[in-house]
């Protein structure tokens, strides 16, 4: 009897022990697997660059340069986040679950960019949202996290619904059930079908990218552990860029590029203002992401889907870094007045000079803006950015004249140079895809928006917004997280 008990106990002990060692080993195994995937993809890409062989599996899967590019990117982020989480989530009771969800998410994204058959395509899109919302609610004992998880899941389901509607509509109208088949048979379909499908796809895209008015899910997703947020901002929200690049022909066929341009542009400006008043570091980063996603969609609207893809990758680096470092925002400081803006005529000339120089460099290296088309718009933004770089540097008293002369060109050459390299690289990898870099002729809307951007720039520069209290409160409320994900529950002993 006692022997039996002992035996039972010892088996139980050994089960517990093996479970414990499993839960310790599991994250490490997955992390290694992800690094392996990343390295494999990277090596494959380097080896075949610039002509990645096209490969397809009977209308179910397909792999091309773009696929490999996204695979490399997403595996990089998940491998990095897993390594980070290895320490960060040490002792977290759901560490293994976190790793499993990470893996599930990564595989969904991989499947998404590889799938050709629309069922697989739609299922993997659903999978991405499913895993992401599970990560948001990973701590199932936490009421607010459960609410946030449910809330975001509703958005993702809405997105999937619209994507399915758009894709299935095209499929049944054209009789083709592969993504590649669909996008190549658009001109056989009536315009209204194409337009409805395009609106559906756009809706799915802007839900995913948290574009206004679907922005609230991203602001309510902070119940996920920090590394999950990094993954979300680097590899999930930018799904719109991938989706739109895959359906670029649909946007051209339906003539909905202006819709993208306007939605993206407006969101970029509004979210950038909203960011200014955020007092929580993660919400501030989320507003910044929304603005950047707006910009990315705007790039799509200008016909530069390849530029949008570059943007989504670079923004991924940028935002993943800021999330992983979001614990650094504690600082002892003193109240300060907003800086006074005044510029001397000579400084203005320097700013203008370097701005133009930067624009020329950009145009030469990327080919954007060399002709009178929508590329001008992007070149203008580069020019203003370089102008701002220069402006801040020449205004700085602690720098010597030499430093002031050298620093701006060094910075913008480093920045524009590396960007141009990335741009060329991505463009080469996307070469096989139809209509991903088609500059549009300059339109009134673009000019109007160019002016709106300049006005926004001056409002910000001059700090005019500070004098509009109702706007402050309006933007404050627009950017509040979902109600039920804050202070909704209280614990109580029974």
């Amino acid at each position, binding site marked *: 009897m006692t022997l039996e008990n002992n035996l039972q106990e010892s088996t139980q002990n050994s089960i517990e022990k093996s479970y414990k060692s499993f839960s310790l080993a599991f994250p490490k195994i997955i992390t290694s697997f992800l690094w392996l995937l990343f390295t494999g993809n990277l090596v494959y890409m380097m080896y075949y660059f610039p002509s990645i062989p096209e490969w397809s599996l009977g209308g179910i899967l397909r792999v091309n340069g773009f696929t490999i590019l996204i695979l490399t990117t997403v595996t990089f982020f998940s491998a*990095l986040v897993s390594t*980070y989480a290895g*320490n960060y989530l*040490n*002792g*977290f*009771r759901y560490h293994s679950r976190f790793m499993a969800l990470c893996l599930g998410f990564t595989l969904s994204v991989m499947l998404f960019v590889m799938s050709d058959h629309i069922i697989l395509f739609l299922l993997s899109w659903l999978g991405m949202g499913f895993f992401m919302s599970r990560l948001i609610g990973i*701590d199932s004992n*936490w009421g*607010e996290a459960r609410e*946030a998880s449910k809330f975001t899941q509703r958005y993702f389901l809405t997105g999937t619904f619209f994507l399915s509607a758009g894709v299935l509509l095209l499929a049944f109208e054209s009789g083709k059930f592969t993504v590649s088949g669909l996008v190549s048979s658009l001109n056989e379909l009536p315009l209204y079908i194409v337009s409805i499908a395009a609106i559906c796809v756009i809706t799915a895209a802007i839900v995913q990218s948290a574009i206004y008015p679907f922005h609230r899910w991203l602001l309510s997703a*902070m*119940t*996920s*552990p920090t590394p999950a947020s990094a993954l979300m901002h680097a590899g999930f929200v930018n799904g719109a860029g991938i989706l739109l690049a895959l359906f670029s022909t649909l946007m051209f066929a339906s003539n909905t590029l202006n819709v993208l341009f306007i939605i993206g542009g407006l969101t970029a400006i509004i979210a950038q*203002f909203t*960011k200014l*008043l955020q*007092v*929580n570091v*993660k*919400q501030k980063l989320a507003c*910044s992401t929304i603005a*950047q996603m707006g*910009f990315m969609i705007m790039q799509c609207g200008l016909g530069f889907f390849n530029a949008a893809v570059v943007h989504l990758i*670079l923004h*991924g680096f*940028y935002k*993943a*870094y*800021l999330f*992983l*470092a979001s*614990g650094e925002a*504690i*600082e*002892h*400081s003193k109240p*300060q007045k907003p800086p006074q803006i005044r510029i001397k005529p000579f400084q203005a000339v320097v700013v203008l000079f370097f701005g133009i120089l930067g624009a020329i460099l950009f145009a030469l290296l990327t080919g954007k803006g060399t002709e009178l088309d929508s590329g001008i718009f992007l070149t203008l*933004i580069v020019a*203003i*950015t370089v102008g*701002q*770089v220069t402006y*801040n540097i020449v205004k700085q008293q602690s720098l010597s004249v030499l430093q002031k002369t050298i620093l701006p060109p060094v910075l913008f050459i480093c*920045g524009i140079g590396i*960007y141009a390299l*990335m741009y060329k690289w991505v463009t080469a990898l996307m070469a096989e895809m139809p209509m991903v870099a088609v500059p549009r002729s300059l339109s009134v809307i673009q000019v109007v928006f160019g002016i709106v*951007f300049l006005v926004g720039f001056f409002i910000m*520069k001059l700090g005019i917004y500070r004098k509009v*209290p109702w706007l402050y*409160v309006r933007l404050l409320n627009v950017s509040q997280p979902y*109600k039920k994900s*804050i*202070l*909704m529950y*209280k*614990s*109580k002993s*029974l």
Partner: protein
Amino acid sequence: MIQQHILKSIEEASKVIGKTWPLYSFVTSNPLSGYEKVSFKDAVNSAKDLLNAKIFPETSLYRQAWEQGEIEKNILIALLRENGLSKSPEFYLQQMQSQKWVQEKNINHDLDRIMAKWLAIFMDEGLAEWEMPGKKDGFYKAWRKLAIYDSEIGIKALCEIPKTSSEALAHVLTGYSKEECTKIFTYHLAALPGWTGFINYRIESNSLWQQEYPISLEDYLGVRLWIAQQLKDQILPEIEKDETDNMISKLQYIWLKAWEKSWQNQLIKTLKKESITTKPSRNGEPCPDAQMVFCIDTRSELIRRHVESKGNYETYGYAGFFGIAMDYENLNDDLVRKSCPPIVSSAYKVSEIRQASKNENMLAYKKKNEILKFGEYFLRRMKNMLPSAFGYVEGSGFYYGLSLLARTLTPGYFYRLKKKNISSYETFCEPEINSATTQDEISLQITLDEKVAIVKSAFDLTGWKQFSPLVLFIGHGSHSANNPFGSSLDCGACAASPGRHNARMLAKLANLPEVRKALADNNHFNIPTDTHFIGAEHNTTTDEIVIFDSEVPDSHKEQLLNLKSDLLSAQQTATQDRFGIQGNSIALAQRKANDWGETRPEWGLAKNAGFIVAPRALTKNDNLDSRCFLHSYDWELDIKGKALEGIMQGPMVVTQWINNHYYFSTVDNDKFGGGSKITHNITGKFGVVQGNGGDLKMGLPLQSLFQSDREMYHKPIRLSVLIQAPITRVTDILLRNENLKTLLDNEWIYLMVMDPLQENDIKLYEKNMQWVPTTEEGVREENYRTKVDVEIFDEILI
């Protein structure tokens, strides 16, 4: 009239909240400090009802302690028996486990949420570029002007809202009695204890932010009650009956007592053994090669043990602010920070001046610093502005990618690289002390007498006898990356700043010839001319000791070199000891110090349980597992008991704060602590909230207290102070200091005295100046008393 009674009620109600310290100077204080005037048991019961908090360790922690043998079986069983509980401990564990915590809807959900929203934007310390409009007018007035735009509150016109918070309160509270008002205030202050605690902090510290943007509890209540009225939420709470089983609370208290008693027993056994084997030594011993003074911090115990084992070294324990009640002006940002215990008001202000002939370093440093600051400003501008934010991301994204890789994969390497390149200003500056009071904005110089007094009390309090050629004052600081709670790992006695500047200041003062002369002239201390004092800092993450030796005379260079190599090997063995590994322990510590994904860079003061005031000889041969604060004290040199009185008024109270903070943030980590770091969201540059927002977190995070979500690291028991001194001397001090006596009578801490006049017998303090022996009989007697305690406790519960 009405206003007066409202203000009184607010004051009465405000004791329900503690103080939430900003994370850049995180002081571990007692969250129930408002209740220190009443007994621990009453206080925790009030907290349970008003804050809806857990007040005793969870059963799983008791179980772990029980299984690890932390709770002695015979003590526990005896205690249970005395209270008429005769079943097995296992049975009672089961019974305690039956208590479950469930989540229920917060009935004031909207009110709490809206308040948190407004408080967060008002209290922000510069995280937002666009600050809340009208902030300068104070919280209530700023809110009032904006409230009309807030569709969630539903106020249409400005004239609907009274102009001041007192008018608003008077309006909302018409018809309520004074007692009801107090009840209302208590309830509404306790609704968001983190935020209201931070208001409390701002009022008391009168920080620059508070001066510029004032907020008061009255403002908070005015806004809250006005919104509550608008939302038709209840103003006067219905008192909820406590439904928890009294039996469970009683059991939990018995288990806590048993746990504490077991620890005391262990400590007594260890020290008893020592007191027999080691006879206090008098003069005539060879002088040590070097003497080192460490902070009383529990982490010093480990490094002291390892340093002592490396050579003929003597170490002392002294409060890490080194007796200088100062504020420190940092050269990096020109901000003045408190650098002494928060219970002490700062009499001095210390700033940096350049050392003679080092003007160039200073200029270069200032230049570099300015450029660094510009870099930060530049990046912020680029990220915030339209449309440069987009261009900036595209131009810099790739470099962020590289940093991602570097910081994730090779943090230890970058730590060493950074350390090599850093030019800390200690190499060309020296601290200068002035009075904190200013005249025409110029700080006044302090007199020689004051300088002498500072130096003298350092040697008085620690019971100093002879001086080595090298005497190091070693403050401590911590290195960690991406850690909002970084300052919680710095020196508690320096108000959560690193202690190096206090150490350097004291060394400088003790090196002054005029100070030494005065000390010798008055027959206090005769410091040999070949003794040199040096400031240093113990890095508690890596156990490295950095010595600020730029002004050490050549005559001492060689000795210093020897010392340094011994300190290096002490670092090696100390880190090995701490991590329980053999090789590469320093590299591991360095990784932890710079890994941005590391949530447990070091353990801080976790596990603290004892405070020993005695000569080092008493503890020198024991491994106390970093569980004790150690203050050096020699009763024979302190004839009038003045030094002991100072130690009990200062360090003892500070250790009590620390211990209580650790206790409460362990027993209810969500309420009194910070919750898990992995979902923290920094707010306003000074605090954290969980997830999407909510109440400000007021205490240490889970990762500072627990090994994992389930296993404890810190043991939540109350501090046991042990003093080696004649019992009559301690009694006298307690009679003179009512506040200390109250603290003991109310059982916030325990006090034991080892009386050298009675063969080092150890007695435990009991209510109203009774001393209970701690021999075997003593334990039994003790148990009887505990029974009475528990009965009193029953009455309170009923």
